[in-house]
C-alpha cells in the first residue's frame, strides 16, 4: 500500500535530517553501558555474569528515551490532527510510523549490542541469543513505548510520567530477553523462549496500534 511506503519515507527523511534524534539514544546506550564496569569493577567473571542484564536494561531505557521524538513534533506542528483525519486506514499509518522509528532507534541498538556485550565479557555463546532476543524484543518495547508516548504527548510535563507508565509494562520483555541469554549460556534450548517472545511481538503488533490510535485521539482533543 502506498500510504505505508509514503509514511516510511516521510519518517525516515525527517529522522535523517535531524540526526540528533537517532544518535542521542545510541549515545545514551553507549555511555550507560560503559558506566557499569566503572561502577562495579572490571572483574571479567563478574562482568560476564551481569552482561546480559546490563545490555538489556540499558537498551530498554534507551528505547524509552528515544520515544519522545515519535509524536512530539507531529503533535506540536498539527500534523497529528491531519493524520487522524486521514481517510486511509490509521492502523497501517501508525504501524508504518512506529516501524520507521524502530528502524532508526531500535535497530542500531541491536547492531551495536554485540560490541558492548563483548566489552562486558559476555561469552561467545551468549552473543546470538542476545542479538536475536533484542531483534524480537526491541520492536515490542517501541510499540509499548509508543502507547505511553501517545498517552502523554499532549501533557506539558510528560518526561518522567512516561517512564512510570511504561517501565512496568517492559518487564516481561526484559525477563524473557535476559532469560534467553542466560538459558543459552547454561546450554538450555532457547527456541521455545524465542517463540514466546515472537508471540508477544505479534500480540503487540496487533493490539498496540489500536491503543495508540485511541490515545492519540485523546491527546489531540486536548
Amino acid at each position, binding site marked *: 500500500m*502506498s*500510504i505505508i*511506503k*509514503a*509514511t516510511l*519515507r*516521510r519518517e525516515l*527523511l*525527517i529522522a535523517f*535530517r*535531524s540526526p540528533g534524534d537517532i544518535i542521542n539514544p545510541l549515545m545514551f546506550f553507549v555511555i550507560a553501558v560503559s558506566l557499569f564496569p566503572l561502577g562495579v569493577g572490571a572483574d571479567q567473571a563478574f562482568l560476564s555474569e551481569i552482561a546480559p542484564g546490563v545490555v538489556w536494561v540499558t537498551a530498554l531505557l534507551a528505547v524509552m528515551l528515544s520515544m519522545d521524538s515519535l509524536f512530539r*513534533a*507531529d503533535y*506540536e*506542528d*498539527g*500534523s497529528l*490532527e*491531519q*493524520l*487522524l*483525519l*486521514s*481517510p*486511509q486506514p490509521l492502523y497501517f*499509518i501508525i504501524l508504518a510510523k512506529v516501524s520507521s522509528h524502530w528502524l532508526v532507534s531500535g535497530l542500531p541498538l541491536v547492531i551495536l549490542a554485540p560490541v558492548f556485550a563483548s566489552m562486558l565479557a559476555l561469552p561467545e555463546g551468549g552473543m546470538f541469543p542476545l542479538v536475536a532476543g533484542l531483534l524480537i524484543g526491541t520492536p515490542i518495547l517501541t510499540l509499548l513505548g509508543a502507547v505511553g508516548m501517545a498517552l502523554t504527548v499532549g501533557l506539558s510535563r510528560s518526561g518522567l510520567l512516561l517512564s512510570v507508565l511504561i517501565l512496568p509494562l517492559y518487564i516481561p520483555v526484559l525477563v524473557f530477553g535476559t532469560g534467553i541469554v542466560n538459558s543459552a549460556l547454561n546450554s538450555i534450548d532457547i527456541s521455545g523462549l524465542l517463540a514466546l517472545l515472537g508471540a508477544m511481538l505479534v500480540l503487540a503488533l496487533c493490539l498496540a496500534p489500536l491503543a495508540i490510535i485511541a490515545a492519540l485521539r485523546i491527546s*489531540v*482533543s486536548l
Partner: protein
Amino acid sequence: MLTVNNLYCERDERVLFQNLDFSVAEGEAWQIQGSNGSGKTTLLRILCGLNDEFTGEILWRGIEQRKARQDFNREVFYLGHAPAINKALTAKENLSWYCASRGLTNTDQIKTVLNSFNLYGYEDMPCYLMSAGQQRRVSLARMLLSQAMLWMLDEPFTALDKQGVLELEVLLSEHAKTGGSIILTTHHNLQMDYPLQSIDLDALAGLVAA
C-alpha cells in the same frame, strides 16, 4: 451534506453553545462568528471529528459522522491553527505525504498548486527556511490537493499579506461556486462576492445551570 442537530457543548462551567441546529448544503459558505473564547475553534473541531466532548447529532449525508468516518474524512478538509508542516521537510515532501495520506496519487499536481500559491521555486526548499506567510500558503495548498467537498477553515487568513488574502477570497468563492461548501471562522472582514451565512455563537452561549 452536513447536518447538525441539537448540538450542546460546555467547558469550564460555561455553555459554549446549546440547541445548535444548522445544515450545510452544497455550494454554501458559512461563517462561525463569536467573540474570543466563544468556542469557534471548539465547534470546528467538533464538526471535523477531532473533539468528541459534546452531545447532539452530527450527520454526514444522513449518516452519523462517527459511523461514516472514512467517507467523511475523504470529503472534508480541515485547516487548523497549527500549520501541520514539518519544518525539516520541503514543501513538496510535506505535500506528497499529505496526498498519500488522503489516498491520492495526484503528486504531479503539487507543483502546479504550489505555483498557484505563488511558491514557484520553493518546492524543494526545507520549510524552516520559509517565512510564516509562505508556510501558511503551503498549508493552504493542501486545501486544493485534498479534493474535498467541504472545507473547514479555522482562521485561514492569519499570516497572509494583502495579496494572499485577496487570492484566498477568490479561491473560496470559486470553490463555493463550483458546488463546494465552506465553514470558516475569521476575524478578518470578508470581502467575498458570494452570499455568506453565519452562526453567531455569542447568542447561543450561557451559564451552566447551577
